[in-house]
């Protein structure tokens, strides 16, 4: 390992490349295994948010829909912080 890289890591500025490789692999394999491309995932994410927003007010900046994979099982994980329920439910949102 070059000295500069070593110092960067010591200072916590740079992740070791092995760790980076694992993270990148896990992400790309989640997509490979589900056969979903990023564009399709983004479309799905928007539609999911739309549906959820009918019922509750969510924080769009914090909302996250992603693929995770463990033991060769891929899961769609949505993390959508709720601000509050919509008063009157679907009817109010639709109207």
């Amino acid at each position, binding site marked *: *390992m070059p000295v500069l890289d070593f110092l960067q890591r010591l200072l916590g500025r740079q992740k*070791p490349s*092995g*760790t980076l*490789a*694992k993270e990148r692999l896990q992400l790309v*394999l989640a997509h*490979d295994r589900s056969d979903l491309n990023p564009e399709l995932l983004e479309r799905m994410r928007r539609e999911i948010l739309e549906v959820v927003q009918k019922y509750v007010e969510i924080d769009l900046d914090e909302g996250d829909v992603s693929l995770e994979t463990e033991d*060769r099982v891929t899961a769609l994980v949505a993390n959508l912080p709720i601000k509050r329920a919509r008063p009157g439910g679907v009817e109010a949102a639709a109207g």
Partner: protein
Amino acid sequence: MASASARIILICSGKGGVGKTTLTANLGIALAQLGERTVVLDADFGLRNLDLLLGLENRIIYTAQELLAGSCRLEQALVKHKQEPNLALMPAGNPRMLEWLTPDDMKTVANLVAERADYVLIDCPAGVEQGFKNAAAACHEAIVITTPEMSAVRDADRVIGLLNSQGIKPVQLVLNRVRPKMVANQEMLSVEDVTEILALPLLGLVVEDEQVIVSTNRGEPLTLNGNGSPAARAYRNVARRLRGEEVPLHDPSRERRGLRARLLNKLGLAGN
């Protein structure tokens, strides 16, 4: 009919150049040395090399092509190894056969050689196209070999998915060309990283070893002459585990932790 006891094992990787053929040759020799009648079957018709690694390239008269056509007998097509009589090679046919070869043809060849064997190891071509499909159709179980590199692991994952969908099991993993020092410095995927990502049982762990190149140059697999190099030991251990023997796996990257790695660890910068 195939003998009931023959195990037909596919050796595959997806990516090329990660060590399929080297593993096939060394494992073939190691199993033969343990008294198992072993046939290595070269299913890489496009780019065959198994003959070269075994030093048998000048002794091929007939191939899988003549065997399928019925123009030679099984004993004529099988090339017996000079020093290890328990091992024989079934050479790949002409690359032009790829135009018409079907999964059933590969099955026929594998079942024919299985009559004379306890183990049939199929050296699979790289890729996931027809050559892979032909070879996969002929096997009962599989060994996926990969290196701790991103592209190799990704391709291995694809192959594992295909093997799973065809109901082939068990599928076991051999991790090849590990560089313990780089793993200790966290500059390479670790053994745990790869087994966790691919979710396969680990059958063997082979460290990067220059002796592999030397042995290929000579056409004498490392396992042939009682070679004590790390890779030779690892291949022999794969053979023993395959036969059901309990052989502990030891991960050399855990022992060789350098000062830098230990320092990073102490400072809590090492991650998992």
